[in-house]
């Protein structure tokens, strides 16, 4: 069944009791929480996701998001994320409970999914090929990812690119898109189809909100894609939209440095990464207008036969 089929009361009760089981891409997760904001976030963002009885289904990750102790329920309330009973992070203010769950789930995947090369990059797909979007924070990666998936591209992930060690294919992890600061209103204005949560302010990343992944991306979350491009987006005020070819060696080095487990995988990571770079076109991409950025990406996807690789 889908999560949206649970009534709000059942969702809250199940979350607080045995937990809610969810499938996100290749992973299953069991979430427990007594907090209404977590139930609300899951209800708004994960309605289309498959859920099963937590008593019957195996879960890769068992996580909880709850106040760290009785005192912190009332005095300057806080929330903690725990994974298999361990707390990898310091507690955060209570109003950051839902973002903390998303950050915690990212951590679970990036620290444990070693059957993939896990790169810190957004990734979207169209016409069978995936565009990997690595970039430093503040470059507009999530904003561009959100705009692309609201314009017909399939969301594979806005944070974690999972490259299968056996096949080299990219596996989807279409969880909510994390939007920050000005991009929250920008994406709301960009499309009436954007379902964006109320922002949580004063986090370490500024104001944070999440955009619900498109239904089609969730429906196709078991369908991997072949890498077609690695594109480094950079939003710059008044910049002309431009795709500029980029060195493959430099691109590889950046991806290796921004992979969570490249060192852990040793020579396998090198072989996997270089094999992938061999098959893609690499670009730097500057833009200031989101509609022009979408058009540039669409042009790439519509002219696959022109690819250099």
């Amino acid at each position, binding site marked *: 069944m889908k999560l949206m089929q649970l009534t709000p009361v059942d969702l809250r009760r199940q979350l607080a009791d045995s937990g809610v089981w969810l499938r996100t891409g290749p992973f299953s997760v069991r979430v427990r929480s007594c907090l209404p904001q977590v139930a609300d976030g899951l209800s708004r963002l994960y309605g289309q996701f498959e859920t099963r009885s937590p008593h019957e289904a195996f879960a890769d990750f068992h996580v909880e998001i709850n106040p760290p102790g009785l005192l912190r329920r009332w005095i300057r309330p806080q929330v903690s994320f725990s994974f298999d009973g361990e707390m990898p992070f310091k507690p955060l203010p209570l109003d950051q409970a839902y973002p903390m769950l998303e950050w915690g789930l990212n951590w679970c995947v990036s620290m444990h999914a070693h059957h993939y090369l896990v790169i810190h990059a957004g990734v979207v797909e169209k016409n069978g090929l995936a565009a990997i979007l690595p970039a430093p924070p503040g470059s507009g990666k999530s904003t561009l990812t959100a705009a692309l998936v609201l314009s017909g591209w399939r969301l594979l992930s806005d944070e974690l690119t999972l490259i299968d060690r056996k096949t080299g294919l990219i596996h989807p992890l279409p969880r909510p898109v994390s939007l920050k600061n000005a991009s929250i209103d920008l994406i709301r204005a960009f499309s009436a189809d954007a379902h964006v949560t109320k922002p949580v302010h004063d986090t370490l990343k500024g104001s944070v909100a999440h955009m619900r992944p498109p239904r089609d991306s969730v429906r196709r979350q078991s369908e991997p894609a072949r890498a077609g491009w690695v594109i480094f987006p950079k939003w710059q005020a008044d910049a002309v939209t431009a795709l500029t070819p980029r*060195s*493959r*060696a*430099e691109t*590889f*080095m950046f991806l*290796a440095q921004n992979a969570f487990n*490249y*060192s852990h995988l*040793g*020579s396998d990571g*090198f*072989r996997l990464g*270089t094999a992938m*770079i*061999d098959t893609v076109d690499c670009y730097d991409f500057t833009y200031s207008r989101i509609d022009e950025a979408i058009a540039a990406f669409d042009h790439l996807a519509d002219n696959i036969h022109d690819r250099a690789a």
Partner: protein
Amino acid sequence: MARFLIKAFGPEAIVFDIASGDTHALSPLALALYSICLEQPGIALAEMHASAVACFDLATDEISFANTQDALTHLRRIGLLSTP
């Protein structure tokens, strides 16, 4: 088993050191010098520089001697070349 895995991308290359787990990028000049050293072990520095310049079809002064020495230092530092 070889210590290094090398993957060329056009005129550049990436090197993985299996012993240390480190990954290095080779500039076009460093890759050319490395290839020259493999083909002509024991080649003198001046000849190596001239061969590298010829590889790129450039005038001699477009790649300085200092550039060649820097690239060789890099190759030695990462262990691809050893000093006799």
